[in-house]
């Protein structure tokens, strides 16, 4: 089983190398499809054999000796409750993304699929690694293929978009790298006999406690990197560009997988390592998340380009995830984790759908469409399901996550204010407004544009790739526990441990004993939190 995990991760990379030998474009496509399908098929036994009761322990673990002399940096990969679903989501989207690019990519086909496959390995590595340095390496590796995917196969503004995407992400992650190295030395001194360590299991253990000042700094560095990746308002400006310019397959991977690396990082690293800072900054992060929810929704409403609309809806939806994470109770964090999957499915589906219509008409402007439901009935059905899932209709997946998050945030001790929920919930209403309005303008009414009269409905390939997504959208909507069970145990334990950890650290160093500005900063944060609570 352990070796199976490695195979699943590296099979796509191997496929990318095999592609070099492929002679025809058809062969390239078939190899890519085969490799991603095999990777997905092999990952299913992992999920089936996952020990739900022990979800807090990394399973299918592979651990090597130190990679660097004198530093306890090891290649550790495993799946646990936090990563399993996202890992599966990534393998699941592999073949779908390959199929979606089947005919729409005509130039440099080999390069395109090679990049997709490398990206797949990178993303799987991000979710599977349990060592921070290894995580960081995979985190950065994913940038390279995405840079080329947007830059070579993107739209007209692709070059600016891809450079912006690359540099933005890199600034955050490099600052995180500094904090990460500092953390490694600090942890080494504290619990690993003075040897630098970035083993997640050690760092997240209750035995390892970090002082308040260090926590604050490191939290800020980590949170910045992940906030840019998510992206959390006001770090979201790269996202609409990247999404709009990226080819369909790129947008799907970006939305479904890569944005999750940010939220995943917040849960996996910030929460257990920096419990006090997480608590202290929770209201701030929550506030930014809520601003993002509303801002994203409002901006989405006025978009003329369907793809841009979906991109801004991502900002809004990921706001929910961040709000859930920083509500810091089991319900909300569980909601956040399932919402990551949900967003991947529904927004991924929306990008696929937008791509399909773009392939036919080479435009994404809402005003160019209208009345498509009559011309393309099958398309209309899929589009409707994806739209409603994104809106959060009960019975579909989006509802589950949003409900858990909003409910959890309402009861959150840390956020300590129902205003987060109230403002957050308006995002759900706004989502219905912009999504359904967009759907009406594109699909209903008379066919105003002659070019739309003879559009072909979805072909077998397009239906094949959308159906699995739809199945999971409905499945999660009806039986969420089939999926939430995987993370439940770990989330409960993680929150419990970090609460105890933060209490014991607080006891050791009270805020007024902090030196100068740091103490003040803490006071202000606490005061702010309590004020919001009073109101």
């Amino acid at each position, binding site marked *: 089983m352990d070796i199976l995990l490695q195979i699943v991760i590296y099979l796509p990379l191997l496929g990318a190398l095999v592609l070099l030998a492929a002679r025809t474009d058809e062969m390239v496509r078939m190899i890519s499809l085969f490799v991603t399908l095999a990777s997905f098929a092999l990952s299913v036994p992992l999920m089936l054999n996952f020990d739900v009761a022990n979800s807090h322990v990394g399973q299918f673990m592979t651990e090597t000796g130190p990679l660097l*002399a004198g*530093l306890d940096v090891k290649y550790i990969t495993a799946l646990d409750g936090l990563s399993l679903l996202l890992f599966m989501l990534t393998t699941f989207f592999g073949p779908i993304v390959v199929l979606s690019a089947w005919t729409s990519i005509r130039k440099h086909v080999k390069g395109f699929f090679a990049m997709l496959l490398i990206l797949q390995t990178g993303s799987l590595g991000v979710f599977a690694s349990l060592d921070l340095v290894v995580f960081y390496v995979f985190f950065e590796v994913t940038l390279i293929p995405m*840079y080329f995917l947007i830059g070579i196969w993107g739209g007209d503004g692709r*070059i600016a978009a891809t450079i912006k995407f*690359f540099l933005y992400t890199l*600034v955050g992650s490099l*600052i995180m790298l500094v904090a990460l190295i500092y953390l490694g030395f600090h942890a080494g001194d504290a619990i690993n006999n003075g040897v630098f360590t970035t083993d997640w299991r050690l760092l997240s253990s209750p035995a390892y406690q970090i002082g308040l000042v260090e926590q604050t700094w490191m939290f800020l560095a980590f949170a910045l990197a992940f906030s840019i990746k998510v992206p959390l308002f006001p770090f979201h400006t790269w996202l609409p560009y990247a999404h709009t310019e990226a080819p369909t397959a790129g947008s799907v991977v970006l939305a479904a997988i890569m944005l999750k690396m940010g939220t995943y990082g917040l849960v996996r690293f910030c929460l257990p390592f920096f419990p006090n800072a997480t608590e202290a900054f929770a209201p701030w992060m929550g506030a930014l998340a809520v601003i993002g929810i509303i801002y994203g929704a409002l901006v989405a409403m006025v978009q003329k380009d369907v793809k841009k609309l979906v991109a801004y809806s991502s900002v809004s939806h990921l706001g929910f995830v961040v709000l859930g994470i920083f509500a810091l109770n089991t319900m909300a964090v569980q909601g956040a984790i399932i919402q990551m999957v949900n967003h991947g499915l529904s927004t991924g589906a929306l990008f696929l759908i937008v791509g399909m219509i773009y392939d036919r008409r080479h435009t994404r402007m809402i005003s160019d469409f209208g009345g498509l439901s009559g011309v393309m009935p099958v398309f209309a059905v899929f589009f409707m399901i994806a739209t409603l899932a994104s809106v959060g209709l009960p019975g579909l997946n989006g509802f589950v996550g949003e409900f858990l998050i909003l409910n959890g945030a309402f009861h959150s001790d840390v956020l300590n204010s129902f205003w987060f929920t109230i403002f957050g919930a308006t995002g759900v209403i706004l989502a219905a407004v912009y999504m359904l309005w967009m759907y009406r303008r594109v699909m209903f009414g008379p066919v105003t544009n002659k070019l739309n009269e003879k559009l072909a409905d979805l072909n077998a390939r397009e239906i094949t790739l959308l159906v699995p997504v739809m199945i999971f959208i409905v499945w999660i909507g009806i039986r969420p526990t089939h999926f939430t069970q995987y993370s439940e145990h770990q989330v409960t334990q993680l929150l419990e441990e970090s609460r105890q950890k933060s209490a014991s650290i607080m006891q050791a160093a009270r805020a007024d004993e902090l030196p100068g500005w740091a103490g003040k900063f803490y006071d202000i944060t606490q005061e702010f939190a309590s004020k919001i609570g009073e109101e």
Partner: protein
Amino acid sequence: MEILNDMVLYLPAIIIALAGLIVMMVDAYTKNTATIYTVSVGSLVLALAAAVYGLFLPSAEIFYGMATTGGTAAFGTALVVAATLFVVVLSREYLTGINHNFAEVYTLILFGTVGMIVLATASDLVTVFLGLETMSIALYVLAGIVRDEKTGIEAALKYFLLGSFATGFFLYGIALLYGATGTTRLAEIGLYADAGLIYWAGVGLLLVGFFFKVSVVPFHMWTPDVYEGAPTTITAYMATAAKTAAFVSLILILERAIPLAVEQWSSVLVVIAILTMVLGNTVAMVQNNVKRMLAYSSIAHAGYVLVGLAAGTAAGYSAVLYYLLAYTLMNIGAFGVVAYYERHKGMKFNSVDQYAGLGYKQPMMAVLLGIFLFSLAGIPPFAGFIGKYQVFAAAIQADLIGLAIVGVLASVAGVYYYLRVLVFLYMKEGTEEIELTRAGVPYRFVLLLLALLTIYFGILPGGLSELLTGFYQGSLYSVAPLP
């Protein structure tokens, strides 16, 4: 007998020096460049074997304390010889392409390399000076080897004038240090370091000389012009082998002659490192000429190396050695691909706009360039990342967190200009008609090998970092003075 034993330990330099003499003779009598090339490559391969063997020998003083073997010095030797070997193979095809395949080039490269080895193994200021000058004089001539181009002559003259000036500072520094301590042996200077004014003035002047050779701000002015004007493979040689030798020598000096004083002057290194990284990276962003861009990038990389030196710890020094290796691999690789493109139009094919659409013409070359550039940018999983990671880790461990933050932010600017080359290669349509001919087998082999090594040292740094850390195990170098 002792001197013979010492000569065995000094084999790499001796082999290359002999080969240099043979090459000069062959040139005088037959002008047969094929023989010259074979002798050069053959001697370098032998020397490399000897140098790699030397890596595993214990550290020792040879030639009555004038030179040292093992550890840092052995690593410097191996790296310099390897870099030279790569450069010689690349140079042959490139220089033939631009019609400047003179025998002198090989002679000069071989003698220059001897100088670099002497420099990288020196444990006495006199040997340091000897190595530095042997190396520099060869480089002055090499920079101007394309003598019918104005830029080439400008490069050589500029390099020579400024270089001699720096040498003056360097010599004066040696004189003052001798005056303050009464010795030129590095280890003894370290023992007698009394931190008096003369001593520190000597250290300062000595460092100015070094800073010039490794081109850090504010002693970097010559670099862009020289790197641009020199033939590209020679630029690669100057940027990698020469810098490696100078930095290795600098480590030996810092470690031995100024050992306990890290606290007092590491702030000087910090300031210079910051200036170098920031200026190198920001100015590189606006360069349109790829060679000039790589010149500024090499300034910036010298800044990262200084970060490791500023840490002044065992971890810092071994990180610097790792960085030098990574830097040598990826920089020779990058210059190699640039040289490959360049030779199709004489030496007039260096503007980044001209690279538009080249990515699809000889795909392998472009992919290799991509790998080297990403590695230079410090993106995993390439060797450049591990190098950066280690120097910054050393700095953070030494409580230089601010320096590390400035460094990583400066490297973001770096990423921008490396990516820009890739933008032109892959994302823009070519405007210029150019037919790329396939590079020769040795040429492609060397570039491929460099790329594979770049990836290998980016994924499995363990063995090498083990070796390098081993050099600095226990206390830093110390030796009893001669009777």
